[in-house]
């Protein structure tokens, strides 16, 4: 299987250094659309969709492989190998922050720095650690997804109808961005929100930028501080932007923060 097709890899930009952008749960590479243009003059830009998201090859979705973040990290290393990339600056949103960290640990020769947007090594509270959600809340999320009480009617409708000869019933409501197969979304949610990667943070030894929004319910401030404490060579930037997706809600602030960090790295 051609990894570039499998992951719908898109290469653009004019530069010798590489920025590799990795989207998070619930989205696809489109979520970088307001950020990447600012880097196209100086960097080679690599965009892709995780298998199961966007325009990736859904048939390549392997439940076993993708029940661990390591499975996603493998794909990233493979993309770097195929494109013969080195000194990559990896920009990961949300769960992709940890996926990037795993890739950098697995293939240190490929990566120069990590930029984590709204990272969380563990979403579930555990003793003194406050991940933002109780175990019950995460189970409720997974249950809502399982019982289809949550999500798109458009993804719901074809599931109910299973109507291959009337595709218009499904297509009519489908969104042009962040498409996802409901079964895969459920599984990715499980992999994402039950993950605990706190133990890998001290194994990250390349320069790391943590972009923390000021009011993020998915990755709260204390999680950003925790992540910063555990990663030796890390910088924590607390943004004015609120929410979980500053790359969409505050692209300029996000771009400025990344550029400032890149000055230091270069």
């Amino acid at each position, binding site marked *: 299987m051609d990894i570039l097709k499998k992951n719908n890899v898109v290469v653009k930009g004019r530069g010798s250094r590489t920025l590799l952008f990795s989207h998070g749960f619930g989205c696809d590479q489109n*979520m970088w659309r307001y950020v990447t243009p600012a880097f196209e003059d100086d960097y080679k830009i690599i965009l892709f969709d995780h298998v199961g998201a966007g325009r990736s090859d859904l048939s390549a979705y392997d439940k076993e492989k993708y029940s661990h973040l390591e499975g996603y990290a493998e794909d990233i290393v493979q993309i770097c190998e195929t494109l013969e990339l080195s000194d990559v600056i990896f920009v990961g949103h949300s769960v992709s922050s940890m996926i990037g960290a795993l890739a950098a640990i697995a293939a240190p020769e490929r990566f120069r720095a990590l930029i984590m947007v709204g990272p969380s090594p563990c979403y579930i509270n555990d003793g003194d650690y406050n991940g933002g959600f109780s175990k019950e809340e995460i189970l409720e999320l997974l249950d809502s997804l399982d019982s*289809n009480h949550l999500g798109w009617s458009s993804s719901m409708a074809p599931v109910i109808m299973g109507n291959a000869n009337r595709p218009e019933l499904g297509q009519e409501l489908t969104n042009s961005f*962040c498409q996802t197969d409901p079964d895969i979304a459920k599984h990715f949610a499980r992999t994402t929100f039950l993950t605990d990667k706190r133990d890998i943070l001290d194994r990250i030894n390349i320069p790391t930028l943590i972009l923390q929004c000021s009011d993020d319910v998915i990755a709260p401030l204390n999680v950003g501080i925790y992540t910063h404490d555990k990663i030796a060579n890390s910088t924590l930037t607390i943004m004015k932007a609120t929410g979980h997706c500053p790359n*969409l809600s505050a692209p300029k602030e996000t771009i400025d923060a990344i550029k400032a960090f890149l000055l230091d790295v270069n």
Partner: protein
Amino acid sequence: MSTNKSYIHKEQVENFQDLMDHALCGYATTDTQGVIILANNKLADWLQIPIEEIKGRKFSDILAVGGRIYYETHLGPLLRMQGHVDEVAVQLLAKNGDRFPVLLNAYERRDEQGQPMFIRLLIIKATDRLKYEANIQEEKRRLASEILDQRDRIKLRDQLIAILGHDLRNPLSSIISGTDFLQQSLQNETDKLLVNIVQRSANRMSELINNIMDFARTRLGTGIVLELSDAKLQPMLQHIVQELHVQFPKRQINFQFHIDEPVFCDGSRICQLFSNLLANALTHGDASAPVEVQAIHQKHHFELSISNQGTPIPQNMIDHIFEPFTREKTRPSHNGLGLGLYIASQISHAHQGTLICTSTVEKTVFLFQMDTSLLKK
């Protein structure tokens, strides 16, 4: 309010503020960061929170945890990128902890430069809809398991047919060999005639059983297994013509065989195919006109055609003519069960050949063709 309230109402003009406040659905507006700046009474009712307390909270905050995560990771990004989301199923989280299923429509209001100003949300009660969905899913699950049950039952039936056919064969072959023996030993012509009738009936039964067993085999997935060899087809096919001529003594069969070399195939299966097609033509064709048979073998190409005259077969029937149990309703079929053409087509398929039927006012033709080089030696 005063006592002449109703009078005042008559005078009042419908206005949007009142419509929003007393709407049948929830309305909310958030700023670009998702903080609620406006909400109506309905939403407040559902949440069991005064409007003033709703304002200032993040919209995702009034959703149950699943929806909250979904809003932050998926819906929010979508609103920013495509500007709207439609009919999203989420649950409101009421003050007492109750989950209240709703459908959400939202769009990002943008200014003339395309910059986001705020997000408008329409919230519709979906309690009943959720029940319908659950019912549909339940029904779908029930049907799926019913279909699996049915499949098991059909398979069992096919197995029964196979076993029955197999078990009937032994006693029948005793009858056939008994009558063969009697035929030789009997002296009385009347007895001989009677035995001959028994013999023909037994042979006919044997054919029917073979058809049933072939049918069961194809249904159970084993299909028709070929025993391939270089078969001397010409005398075999001639024998079939003679056999059927005995069964249809008043009919004329014109045949032309050009088969000089042996044909690589399963000879007895090709004979079965021919016998079924010829019997079909004799049964359904115009009784006053001859049936024309032609067989040609050239290099790897083998071709067999059987044509008869008579009322043409309508196209909608031709489309299904090779399906099992397809029989003409008006006349009893020669094969009794409507399996003859089905089995012929299965034999053709096993030989990687084609069997097609064309029917016009002039004639009805069944044409079998195969390339013997496709068959593995």
